[in-house]
């Protein structure tokens, strides 16, 4: 359609249907994909975008023009920056959006080669589900293990292994089963609560949106069906109330003279008006007088809501403080024991000083010890390593200048994570996940 083709007929059935789908109440599923160009990742993403009608006609036309072979190369839909095309590499995480009547999807497309740890960790940090691509002809490679490990390290609750290019192995059930069994055995050694293996052909669309006739032996869902139905509501921690104070709201106007509210995002648990709460670090207790949401007062707040909490007593509360329940408080500690992904050229070494940001609290820290460096391919722990280089992962002990209020990452993704910042360059140089002491 060119712009002057005339208006869209708003009285058509298609318009009515499209409108109903658009305004339906949906939730969001955040996905991270990992794999290299050779695995057909771009083709798969192009296929998901195209088949879910997230691709617009002008984008499709541009891709059609650029395609060289007999078919439209859907991989070009995820084509990146000119800087990347010039070098033939993908340099950074790209975010894609598509939706179906049931769900809307935010897909972090993480390149597999250069800076893979940094990119995969970035993409997986916010993901509900990770898709690892495996080429059916090659089976499980070192890279597949690495991707699965990183997804489990970041505690992405759901993992999907898409065994791609099944058309090139004559839809062999035996090949699929061998890869599935090998992956399942590997996953058993990691923290992967939910693993799904789907045989697909991204190029032809088999088992991507609809079940394929080429795999009568496969009884599972198509990939998109799984993405639409995977149960994520119980992935969140609704038990431990944690509310890091982000900003203090004091209108200082005549109409709201006495208003004093603590703005923030519920990290975990549920806060209710009338709850007895404790404020850290002071340890003082009070009750929640009221909670204001974007549309006025609400009775309760849960993650990931952004709200403003009002307290009954006039306490001294500021950014970096944390509101919790008196009987269920996080650990207050200056000693951090964490798995760290290092993302700087200069290695992480003992005695190094760094800035650390944990929830809304920023403090300084010193590296006490690099306990071991992990080989992400073999899971071997090298205790002699002494430092962490670019894209290395290892167990690190840190000592902070002020206490942080923490939980283990495995129990609470929101209060168990932190970033490390180089104070000289201001660059983000590390991602940390707290482990039990």
């Amino acid at each position, binding site marked *: 359609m060119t712009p002057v083709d005339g208006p869209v007929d708003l009285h058509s059935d298609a318009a009515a249907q499209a409108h109903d789908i*658009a305004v339906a109440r949906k939730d969001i599923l955040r996905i991270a994909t990992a794999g290299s160009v050779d695995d057909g990742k771009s083709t798969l993403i192009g296929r998901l975008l195209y088949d879910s009608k997230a691709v617009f006609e002008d*984008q499709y036309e541009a891709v059609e023009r650029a395609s060289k072979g007999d078919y439209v190369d859907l991989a070009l839909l995820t084509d*990146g920056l000119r800087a990347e095309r010039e070098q033939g590499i993908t340099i950074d995480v790209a*975010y894609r959006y598509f939706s179906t009547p049931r769900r809307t999807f935010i897909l972090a497309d993480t390149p597999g080669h250069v800076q893979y740890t940094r990119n995969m960790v970035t993409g997986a940090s916010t993901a509900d589900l990770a898709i690892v691509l495996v080429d059916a002809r090659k089976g499980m490679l070192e890279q597949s293990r690495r991707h699965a490990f990183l997804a489990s390290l970041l505690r992405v609750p759901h993992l999907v292994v898409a065994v791609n290019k099944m058309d090139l192995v004559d839809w062999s059930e035996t090949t699929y089963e061998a890869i599935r069994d090998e992956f399942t055995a590997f996953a058993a050694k990691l923290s992967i609560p939910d693993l799904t293996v789907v045989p697909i052909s991204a190029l032809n669309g088999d088992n991507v949106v609809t079940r394929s006739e080429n795999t009568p032996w496969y009884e599972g869902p198509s990939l998109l069906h799984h993405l639409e139905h995977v149960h994520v509501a119980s992935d969140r921690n609704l038990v431990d109330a944690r509310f890091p104070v982000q*900003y203090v709201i004091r209108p200082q106007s005549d109409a709201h003279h006495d208003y004093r509210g603590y703005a923030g995002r519920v990290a975990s648990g549920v806060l209710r008006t009338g709850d007895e709460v404790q404020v850290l670090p002071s340890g003082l207790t009070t009750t929640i007088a009221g909670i*204001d949401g974007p549309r006025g007062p609400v009775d309760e707040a849960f993650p990931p809501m952004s709200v403003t909490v009002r307290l009954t007593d006039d306490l001294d509360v500021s950014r970096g403080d944390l509101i919790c329940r008196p009987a269920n408080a996080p650990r207050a500690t200056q000693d951090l024991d964490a798995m760290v992904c290092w993302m700087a050229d200069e290695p992480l070494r003992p005695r190094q000083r760094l800035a650390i940001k944990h929830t809304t609290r920023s403090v300084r820290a010193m590296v006490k010890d690099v306990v071991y460096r992990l080989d992400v391919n073999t899971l071997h722990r090298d205790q002699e390593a002494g430092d962490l280089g670019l894209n290395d992962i290892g167990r690190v002990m840190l000592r902070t200048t002020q206490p942080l209020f923490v939980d283990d990452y495995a129990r609470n993704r929101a209060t168990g994570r932190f970033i490390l910042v180089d104070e000289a360059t201001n660059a983000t140089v590390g991602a940390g996940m707290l482990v039990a002491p």
Partner: protein
Amino acid sequence: MTTPDYRLSQLETLEAESIHVIREVVAELERPVLLFSGGKDSIVMLELARKAFAPARIPFPVMHVDTGLNFPEVLEFRDKRVAELGVDLVVASVPDAIAAGTVKQEPNGSRNRIQTPVLLDAVEEHGFTALFGGARRDEDKARAKERMFSFRDEFGQWDPKNQRPELWDLYNGRIHLGESIRIFPLSNWTELDIWQYILREEIAIPALYLAEEREVVERQGMLYAVNEFIRPRDGEQVRRETVRYRTVGDANLTAAVPSEATTVEEVIAEIAVTRMTERGATRGDDKVSDAAMEDRKKEGYF
């Protein structure tokens, strides 16, 4: 509010994320400013800023890069909204910069590119360190790689090869003197999300976004409504058509689309069935090259 299953809808999730980002900036950065064009995205962003600090006022000013080629409806809307919210308005004027000789207009009348130096000068003059922009990642492939907190060097430049990794929702707003951060709270919103939010929250928008019978001329396959800046050229036929604007840019370069959508509800139905991205359909200035946006962003454009 009844939410027995403790689940937010897609719009509520996006809203919560944007409010968190906006508050984080005010907590961590010295002098933020919100870029307001009068377009639907910046209108939604301003509404989210209002919600982030209610019942207090928005604790930062709003800046408009005025190209001097505005739709009058948009200027009227801007002034009204700013007055309602009680926020300060900073106008960075492109015509003033042209008059002072600091920038030159392009031969085709586009002032898109020269907005950037005018913007950067205003940022320096006022000492702004954080600039909120309404860009979305679904708009363009250069935007798909953009961060929520996008670091800019002392020249306002974006370096796509050297972006700070953005982990979880732990944003790094640390900068040195002269550097700044562009903040994109709407990164994860799509065009349809914006419209659904406008509908749900009953947010006022300029009437240009809704279909109305207007006098138009056809140029290079696009329809331009006749206005102060678009006069019919020799051989061009003026005809009356029912059209609306999908984006609101400069009045001399923004095309309208034929449309029957006279309400926000109808706009949503129209977009839901339309298969044409908004920039491709209506912005003459983006057609120059496939990498136009990438180049402009590197120079410091939004």
